[in-house]
């Protein structure tokens, strides 16, 4: 019996605590204590005998203290007797802690509508702030470029080459594979549907124009946003968390110049290169499918391709690439620098980076489509 209630000869109550008042028994102890501290439980003054306690830890001490406090709140005296010397220190320690404790925070969910409105308002203002941060980042990168142009020795060439290796060279195999498959899929769909009205030959036009103008650059930009943008955010974010960026700043270095500019420049160089490779791979994929599935000889495919596409289509695709790269780089850097202290925030920012940069890539693509249409390209 961990806690029992008895009567003394003089009429007072005698509470007897015994056994192990420790964490594994805490749930049961709490139930017992709860019973005796309930408002309906009127016992009167008396003593609390602790001589039977074998072991006690903070949990037990805290629950005993609850008993004492409950009696005190009723204005009745409850004297402690028989506490072993080795237990007294802990009981005193627990008893001496600050009272009363702050109330538990009220459970949420009472007012759904105001909460939803608050959430909406916050997310709108967050979006606005994000836009400002992004523009700020583009400005900072621009300023760093101006600084580097004025004083070219300030440019971190080694770092930029290293980043270029990571985002361009190491990305080549996966980009080639994906764009090859995409080219093949487009050609296959084209043959399947165009064959119905005998327009097989126009598959080459479709593959050529679609790949060079739109799909090549889009697929590559999306891949790069997912592959390199996210890694930039995670890197910069964890550097921010560990105060490495603050350390750079206090040593008189500009983090934008040292960390962000080489990364952004590497992306701006990498994306056109990868787009070119991707477009070539997609055309090869289209050609392969045309040969194997559509029964079109590669020489005919190449001849048709020469008629169907012009340098303009190629240019339209490539011109977009550096701008998309800049968008990805700016988003990745801005998100990385807004990481707060927690691991959760790092994950959130990395996700936000990928989502935002892909969104921006598509928006930019749309704007370019309108621009090129209006100048007749």
């Amino acid at each position, binding site marked *: 019996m961990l806690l029992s209630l008895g009567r003394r000869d003089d009429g007072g109550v005698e509470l007897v605590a015994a056994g192990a008042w420790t964490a594994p028994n805490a*749930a049961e102890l*709490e139930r017992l204590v709860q019973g005796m501290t309930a408002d309906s439980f009127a016992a009167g003054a008396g003593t609390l005998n602790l001589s039977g306690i074998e072991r006690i830890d*903070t949990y037990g001490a*805290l629950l005993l203290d609850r008993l004492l406090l409950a009696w005190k709140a009723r204005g009745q005296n409850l004297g402690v007797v028989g506490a072993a010397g080795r237990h007294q220190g802990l009981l005193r320690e627990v008893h001496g802690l600050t009272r009363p404790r702050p109330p*538990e925070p009220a459970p949420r969910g009472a007012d759904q509508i105001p909460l939803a409105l608050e959430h909406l308002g916050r997310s709108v203002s967050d979006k606005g702030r994000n836009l400002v941060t992004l523009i700020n980042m583009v400005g900072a990168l621009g300023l760093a470029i101006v600084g580097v142009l004025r004083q070219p020795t300030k440019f971190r060439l080694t770092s930029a080459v290293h980043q270029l290796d990571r985002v361009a060279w190491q990305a080549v195999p996966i980009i080639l594979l994906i764009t090859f498959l995409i080219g093949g899929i487009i050609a296959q769909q084209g043959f399947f549907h165009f064959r119905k009205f005998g327009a097989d030959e126009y598959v080459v036009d479709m593959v050529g124009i679609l790949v060079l103008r739109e799909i090549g650059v889009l697929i590559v930009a999306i891949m790069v946003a997912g592959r390199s943008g996210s890694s930039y955010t995670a890197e910069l974010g964890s550097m921010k968390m560990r105060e490495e960026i603050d350390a750079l700043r206090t040593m008189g270095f500009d983090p934008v110049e040292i960390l962000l500019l080489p990364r952004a420049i590497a992306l701006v160089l990498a994306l056109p290169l990868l787009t070119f490779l991707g477009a070539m791979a997609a055309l090869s994929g289209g050609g392969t499918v045309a040969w194997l599935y559509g029964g079109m000889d590669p020489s005919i495919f190449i001849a048709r391709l020469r008629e169907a596409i012009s340098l303009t289509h190629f240019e339209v695709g490539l011109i977009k690439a550096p701008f998309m790269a800049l968008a990805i780089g700016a988003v990745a850097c801005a998100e990385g620098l807004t990481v707060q202290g*927690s691991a959760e925030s790092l994950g959130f920012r990395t996700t936000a980076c990928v989502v935002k940069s892909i969104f921006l890539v598509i928006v930019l693509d749309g704007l370019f489509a309108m621009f090129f249409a209006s100048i007749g390209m």
Partner: protein
Amino acid sequence: MGAPHPASAVRIRDLVVCFGDHIILDQLSLDVRTGEILGFVGGSGSGKSVLLRSVIGLLPKRQGTIEVLGIDRDRADDAALHALERRWGVLFQRGALFSSLTALQNVQFPMRENLCLSARLLRDVALAKLEMVGLDARDADKLPSELSGGMTKRVALARALALDPELVFLDEPTSGLDPIAAGEFDELIRTLQQTLGLTVFMVTHDLESLRSVCDRVAALADGRVIAIGTISDMRRSTHPWMQAYFQGKRSHILATPPITGA
């Protein structure tokens, strides 16, 4: 908790730990007696933290045996290891708080996972632990990134003590605390040790805590325990590193008699 209480809470025999070809701990043997506070000293890079991490099972050992609370990790099954891990608390050097949980939630985490408590008791105990280590209840809802270095350490200690363990490993508990806080910390460890019969294995550089709270001190050099005993035994040692450590410029605080625990 019905496990036997051996005379040694931690028993290490001929422990060898290597990183590649580099031998960090070479045939190290050490006993931490149940109920004592053992201070563990050694130069930077001498392998103090490596020893601590090997004992709690974070680093693999090459040979030797480690028994903690009477259980040999190599022979114990998963359930026994899990039960063992509930019986100790670890304070990491940099706190290692969960960054997405508040201070209070960090302390509640082991309780929530291992015990079945009501929300009220959970909150009460966690707040009590935080207050015991000298934190204000107002700081309980702060995230680790909003806490200062000393506060982080206190929350980490509160978390290490959350389940009222029998054995606590402290990796430099007082580093980064101001002298007053460090003194309170020492006193707290003393109180807890006396009331809970806690065994404390403490890696420390703080001469003041070595003097005031440690029952025994062990010194690590060249991958072995070169001396173990009371602080006055340490001062009599003739080993050059021990001479430098215990008789050096800052060792004058050892000369004053220790404050006996409350």
